Each structure stands twice: as structure tokens, then as C-alpha cells.
């Protein structure tokens, strides 16, 4: 449970930016139609690259908080991005049904 909370703690460092982009993609899909889904996914994946670079550079010291909880960086990134991508697709799916 604490490991999950720690991953959530890590995810929170970039979640607002990621959610904002998800919201913009949903808006795009809602207004321009489902054919923009592919573009939105590409945009989202591209944003992950930048989030990774920025967080890795700016939160390098804080990573030791997670290392001391025996959580490797790979696990933190994979879990956070997977959860976020799932949330993104869920939002997109909901937008197509409205």
C-alpha cells in the first residue's frame, strides 16, 4: 500500500500538466471528431518525453526519497505513465460517447 502511495506521490509531481494536456486532447476530440484520436495520442506520447526530461532534471534530488523506499526509477516512470495513459484513453473514450 505504501509503495502505491509513493508512486502516487511521484505521479503528483507532473500530474497537473499531464491532466491539462489530457483535457486539451479531449477538447480537441470533442470539437474535431474521432479522427483526431491518433494525433491526440501522438501529442500525449510526445508530452511524456518532455515530462520525463524536465522531471528527471528538476527532481533528481527527490528521487532519493523513492530510492530509499526501495523503488527503482523505472518502476516509478512505468507505473505513472501507464496509469496516466489509461486515464487519458478513458477520458477520450468518454468524450466520444457524449
Amino acid at each position, binding site marked *: 500500500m505504501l509503495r502505491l502511495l509513493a508512486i502516487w506521490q511521484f505521479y503528483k509531481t507532473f500530474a497537473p500538466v499531464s491532466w491539462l494536456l489530457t483535457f486539451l486532447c479531449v477538447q480537441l476530440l470533442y470539437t474535431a471528431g474521432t479522427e483526431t484520436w491518433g494525433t491526440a495520442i501522438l501529442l500525449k506520447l510526445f508530452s511524456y518525453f518532455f515530462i520525463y526530461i524536465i522531471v528527471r532534471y528538476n527532481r533528481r534530488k*527527490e528521487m*532519493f526519497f523513492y*530510492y*530509499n523506499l*526501495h523503488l*527503482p526509477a523505472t518502476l516509478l516512470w512505468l507505473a505513472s505513465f501507464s496509469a496516466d495513459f489509461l486515464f487519458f484513453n478513458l477520458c477520450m473514450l468518454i468524450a466520444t460517447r457524449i
Partner: protein
Amino acid sequence: MNHTLEIDGVQLQFAHRFILSDVYVRCDTGSITGLLGRNGSGKSCFMQVAFGTMQAYTRSVRCNGKHIRRAYTVPGLLNYLPQFHFIPASMKVTTALKYYGIAPQTLFAHFPEYEPDMHKTMEELSGGQRRMIELSIILLADTKFSILDEPFTHIMPLHVESIIALMQTIKHRKGIIVTDHMYKHILQVSDTLYLLNNGKTHLISHPNQLVQHGYVSHILNE
């Protein structure tokens, strides 16, 4: 149960310059291992290689003779206090303690003056207070070993004494590897002492050997 942590065979180089080439450090449960060395001698690199967060060309980290690839990923094995603040600034002290499974009362037992600060975030504390909280968390957390990189930096003298007392108490259940430039504190607290010089570790059995190796010009006696 007693445990032994051994680190050797570390080869680390930056820009064709060997930082670490011939090191051996051993730490047992119930003992404090001190590591001294000049600025840039590779103490922090060595600690991060031991912790598993820095890659080295070769290295061997063993616990009870068993080789470990990335020590920090092994639950309950060891933790590491870096030179910088590592707990997120927006995190409350109580939350940080909870993550590391430390009851606030355990911290108050050693440092009662921190009780009013428990609900503050790390950024609301002074640099010294923050360092003290982080150091206490590393020491009180349930691991077999703790690696401390300059634990006495930014700490006021009164608290240095408290930290030394805590280390002496904690060492009965874990092994501690510590480095700092305040060599007198390291001499005071260490059961085993190594000097890192030119990428090699030298076992120091008498403080005068620090003079012979050129680490200090003379030993101050108080």
C-alpha cells in the same frame, strides 16, 4: 541477527581519470564505519555506487557474502542520506515519517523539540531542521544498513551530539557507513575507519596515519 556489508572491486572513472580503483569497505551490524577523504576523492561516488544509484565499470556489493546488483532495490537492506535535501519540499514531516514506517513518538523520544514542527511541510523548516529530520528518518528506518553522506553538515553542535548519541544507539540493530569533513566527529563515532586517497581505501588504525597520508596536517586534541 548480524549482517555484513562489503563493497569492493569498484572501478569508476570520469574522463579517463580513475576516481575509484582499489577500494574495500566492510560494515557489520553493531559497528559504525567511517570514511574520510579529501574533496573530490570519490566518497560520495563510492556511496552511490554502493547504494546502487551510480553505475561503475565494475563493482561488487555483498551482503552476508551474497552479491547484490542494485542494493537500494532490496527491501530492508540499506538506505542512504545524500548530501542534499531529498524529501519533497511540499511533504509534511508526519507524511514523510509514515512513508518510512516511523512512529512520530520514536522521533520525539530522541528529539522532543521537533514535536511542534510535525505538521509543517519540509520547506517550512530551516535547512538545519530539515537536515535533522532527514537524517533521523534514515537512521530510524528499518534497514540493515545506513549510508550517511556528510550527516553533520548544517547541523548545530548540540544536535551533532544528539545525532552521535542516536547513531551509537541505532548501531546495535544496524550497520552504519558515514563520511564527513568534520573528521573529529568521524574519529569519535567510528569503530572502523578508512581513508579514501587516490582512488584507494586505507584502513586507519591510528589517527596519526591521517597525517602520514596527508589528509590533515596535525591531529587536534581537545
